């Protein structure tokens, strides 16, 4: 076992340094699938470094709320990242009920991002904000039904134990677990604004969700927005990867397994994006309801 201090350090460094790699991996996968060379995997690091040096431009309509979006978004997700275990390594902070705090911290990040979009007075950003609020209202029940199913199975209210327990999987939980993960992958795609819900690469503002909410951000605030988005890919990724990973005897093996799975997840998202188009906006709620139903069935299976 690695000493606890080292584990925490590794956790913190992963949270701070790793996230920008994930969008790079996704983009690279998409490029290779399309037969292009694509930007370097580290592109987002370069972008962040560039944005950090640039002047920020603010619309005269905006107030301090405009900055609360990027700041609050990153701060809330950073706090949430302390609660989630990365694979079968302990979460730095763990207590009964942290699972609810985790979900509501994401709510806080979303609330501030929406307000920051509305602060510009732009109709496009208002549109994106409205879509974000609408779709996430459907994602929330799926998330909580999944938590409920896991809590039912192992009577824990702490993310650390709740997510890690299927690692010592018995056959009885395999079916429900697959359903939970199916539902949560949908939540993952929605929360991270990926295809088939949202297309991060589109150039038509009318059809975007997340990208259109940050049209007015520039310089360092925009760097925070981009970093926050990649952070969400990591933290929510840990949420869906941890229950799926087998438990290894050595700590370093667990870390390696987590990093490998994370890379696999990014490649998987890239493959999904390469193989299908974005849904029409009206189809998105149906997709989300599918996620809710999957997790609801998982809970029912846990009951029997």
């Amino acid at each position, binding site marked *: 076992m690695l000493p606890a201090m080292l584990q925490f350090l590794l956790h913190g460094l992963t949270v701070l340094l790793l996230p920008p790699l994930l969008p790079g991996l996704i983009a690279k996968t998409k490029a290779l699938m399309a037969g292009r060379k694509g930007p370097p995997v580290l592109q987002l690091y370069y972008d962040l470094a560039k944005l*950090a*040096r640039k*002047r*920020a*431009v*603010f*619309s*005269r*309509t*905006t*107030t301090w709320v405009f*900055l609360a979006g*990027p*700041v609050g978004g*990153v*701060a809330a997700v950073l*706090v949430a990242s302390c609660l989630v275990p990365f694979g079968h390594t302990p979460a730095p*902070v763990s*207590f*009964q*009920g942290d*699972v*609810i*705090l985790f979900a*509501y*911290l994401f*709510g*806080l990040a979303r*609330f501030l991002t*929406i*307000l920051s979009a*509305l602060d*510009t*007075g*732009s*109709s496009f950003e*208002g*549109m994106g*904000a*409205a*879509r974000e*609020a609408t779709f*996430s*209202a*459907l994602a*929330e*029940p799926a*998330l*909580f*039904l999944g938590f*409920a199913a896991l*809590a*039912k199975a192992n*009577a824990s*209210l702490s993310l650390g134990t709740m997510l890690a327990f299927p690692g010592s999987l018995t056959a009885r939980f395999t079916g429900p677990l697959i359903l939970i993960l199916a539902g949560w992958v949908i939540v993952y795609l929605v929360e991270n604004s990926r295809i088939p819900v949202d297309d991060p690469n589109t150039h038509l503002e009318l059809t975007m969700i997340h990208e259109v909410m940050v*049209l*007015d951000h520039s*310089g*360092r*605030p925009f760097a925070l927005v981009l970093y926050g988005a990649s952070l969400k890919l990591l933290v929510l990724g840990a949420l869906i990867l941890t229950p799926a990973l087998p438990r290894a005897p050595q700590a370093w093996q667990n870390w390696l397994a987590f990093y490998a799975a994370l890379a696999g997840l990014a490649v998987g998202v890239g493959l999904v994006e390469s193989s299908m188009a974005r849904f029409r906006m009206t189809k998105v709620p149906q997709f989300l309801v599918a996620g809710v139903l999957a997790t609801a069935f998982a809970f029912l299976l846990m009951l029997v």
Partner: protein
Amino acid sequence: MSLYLLALLAAAVSGVPGLFLRRRGGEVAAGLLGLAALLGLTAALRVLAGGAGGTLLLRTAALGAPGLLVLDPLAAFFSIPVLLLSFCGGLYGVGYWEGHRGHTPILCLVFGLLTASLLMLVMASHALTFLLAWEGMAIAAFLLVMAEDREAETRRAGWIYLAATHTGTLFLFAAFALLAKVQGHWGFGALPAGLAATPGGTALFALFLLGFGFKAGVLPLHFWLPPAHAAAPSHVSALMSGVMLKMGILGIVRFLSWVPDPPSWWGGTLVALGALSGILGVAFALGQHDLKRLLAYHSIENIGIILLGLGLGTLGKATGHPVMQVLGFAGALLHVVNHSLFKGLLFLSAGSVLHATGTRDLERLGGLGRTMPWTSGAFLAGSWAICGLPPLNGFVSEWLIYLGAFRGLGLELGLGRQAWPLVILVSLALIGALALACFAKAFGAAFLGLPRTQAAEQAPESPRTMLLPMGLLALACLAIGVVPALFAPALERVVGVLSGGALGGGTLAGGETLMALAPLRMLTWAAVILALLALLLGRWLRLVPQGRDLPTWDCGYAAADARMQYTASSFADGLVRGLRWALRPVAHLPRVAGWFPHPARYESHVPDPALDRAASPALQLAVRGAGLLRVAQGGALPVYLLYVLLTLLALLVWMVA
């Protein structure tokens, strides 16, 4: 006790000096209400800290009751929001009513009387005092709703409210009569074990639920609530929504505390009603573009959350699971206080907007954040709290209920009850997400972006007397949210009273304290880290030079104006459409015809089906039925005297026989 009675007296007479003073009557009233708050809070906190309460006895054998007014932990707990909000409301009223012509001193007087009735109501431990205070509260609130009775809308709202509250009272009369018949006196106290399972117990539960449900605004008995809250002056709305609705909850809580062995279906009923009120309450709120109506529907939603907690606690009590009982009741009770704090704050800031712009219509506001920074901050704090987002107080109470429900999932509740914790979880999650959408809409439309009208553009910030109460309430929200552990011992004591029997006396079964069940201290750490990170990142943003005075990027179009802005209705449109089976929105589409169509208007709103389709027709039917009785009412005095004589004779014959 005597301190508390002094507080009650101070509140009752707070408006009297204003009747005689030429000016500064409002300030004197606010001062007296402040004195009442000081005295009352001292008394209440002393009781909650474990001190002895007190009982006011009236030496009449005829009443045959243990006491008329009792200051127990439950009363002390419920009196806290009353005292805080009435003081804040009184102070706020000074600025709000400035320049308001007409009967301001009378309204000040009635405001004090309303506070006094509320203070008496929380202590009432006898059907007589309870109903007296209840009626005092109902009538005082009616007079306050009617403050701007020159407007037809206000008069309609007032009469609907009066009819609804008296229908509720009617059920209460029946309930108390039945209660007196069961226990042989009119006092309040523990009911015998086994009663709850009998038809009499069922009838009591149903009658109390109906009577108190009207007051609390439980769906579908809520129909009086949105118009009344929208029409009343804003600090009265704050007191009504923050405190008066809670008296319905107080009633249900009192009743539950008397029953040692509630059947589990009571818990199920409470959960079902809570889920219905919670989800539909916030759904209807999404459809509103009148700021105060929107807030009123959110009160229904929050009553739903409180009922979810009470239902969870009752289920735990019925099935013998103290964990669910403690967490459910604790969450529900804390949410009572929390909701009065943040809803009071929201109504006061909405009133501030109304005061400055003269409109409650979200589509006519916008951009107030720049001209009214303090009000905007207050409204943001209230929205933050009501959405249950950490680190404000709304999160703490919802978290407790969540914890109880999650714990309940793993417990053996018996067939058919296993689903209730899940219902609570999913409802809370859905309510949370919808509330977030609704308050993003309300705050965004009113305070962010470009001003949509000239009135919004030139709105002045409110005077200090209005801002101070808002700041006070916002601080209270922050305090409970950041250091909830500080308030846990008091909460434990009240939960002990409510749980009765097994958990009486403040210590909980199996040594499981609230603090052990819910690690509240961790929330403090989360709040501190969150604040530090936000400060750090905010600092980092300011280190580079910034460019200003440029237009918003509107995809290449440089002259975007307020008319192109996304409206509140458009923001909520997706969700309202998704919920149209329940909300039934009405849209007036413009008729566009010919080659050169005239300017057209589009309008949409979400009417209240409970009022338009159920309550109004029922009332009309009742009026028509009452018309039949009019035959007996000739209007001539001798005829009425004859009725009296005949009744007396009949009674005499009956007594002799």
